[in-house]
């Protein structure tokens, strides 16, 4: 996926109405009229959002003159999702390992302190 294509996908996804439209379309094809209904938005306003989504390749629209049903195109979404997942996973996986390391550092420090309190020649008994 080219950077400009990814950019268009993310720009299209940055709007909450457009995300809601995609969520609705995930359940199946819907006409523009039906799509506009739950959003308290005029059909032209919805059409504008659909144009952005279509431009980003996130949806396609049927040719049936009147209804022009909208359909979700999963590929760009999945690619965008994958990109983000990598970003998130990067930090999640890193931080989980850092948790383990910090536990170990604290345990070592506690052990060092314990040893320091004892006379150097005395054998460690626990």
């Amino acid at each position, binding site marked *: 996926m080219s*950077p400009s294509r*990814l*950019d268009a*996908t*993310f*720009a299209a*996804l*940055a709007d*909450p109405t457009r*995300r*809601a439209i*995609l*969520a609705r379309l*995930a*359940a199946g094809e819907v006409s523009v009229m039906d799509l506009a209904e739950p959003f308290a938005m005029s059909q032209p306003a919805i059409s504008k959002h659909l144009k952005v989504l279509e431009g980003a390749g996130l949806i396609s629209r049927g040719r049936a003159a009147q209804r022009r049903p909208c359909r979700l195109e*999963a590929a760009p*979404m*999945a690619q*965008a*999702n994958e*990109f*983000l*997942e*990598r*970003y*998130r*996973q*990067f*930090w*999640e*996986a*890193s*931080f*989980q*390992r*850092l*948790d*383990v*390391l*910090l*536990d170990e*550092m*604290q345990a070592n*420090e506690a052990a060092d302190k314990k040893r320091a309190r004892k006379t150097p020649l005395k054998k460690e008994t626990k």
Partner: protein
Amino acid sequence: MKNLGTLKVTTPSDREVVLTRVFNAPRRMVYDAITKPELLKRWFGPHGWSLETCEVDLRVGGAWRYMLRGPDGSKMGMSGVYRELSPPDRTVHSERFDDYPGQSIVTCVLTESEGKTTFVATVLYESKIIRDAVVASGMEHGAAESYDRLAGILAS
């Protein structure tokens, strides 16, 4: 897309992403862990990746360079320059990935309370693309739920 652990991601402005994470350790330890190569090598990187090269010139104006190696042998390089180092509570550095255009400025602030450290990294991006990516992911409050559902449907 579940919020695993306690990692919180927010987007306070157009070009910023803020990562917040609490660690069960004093901040001097967290500071060491994010600045010392021998410790960075133990934790930094995505799942299955290892930090093969970690060169750190830990002084203001000093350069750092990481090379990560993935499970399939692929490599990911990143580098930058330290702009501010104030142990044990603050660092500022620039960061760029070899394979992506643009650089970001990362400010890390550590605050300690009752033996726990809150780590806040503010990433200021030069371009909007990755910033927008985070917004689009629905990691912000409110949008997460509907996006989770959608992601779940698309993944199935």
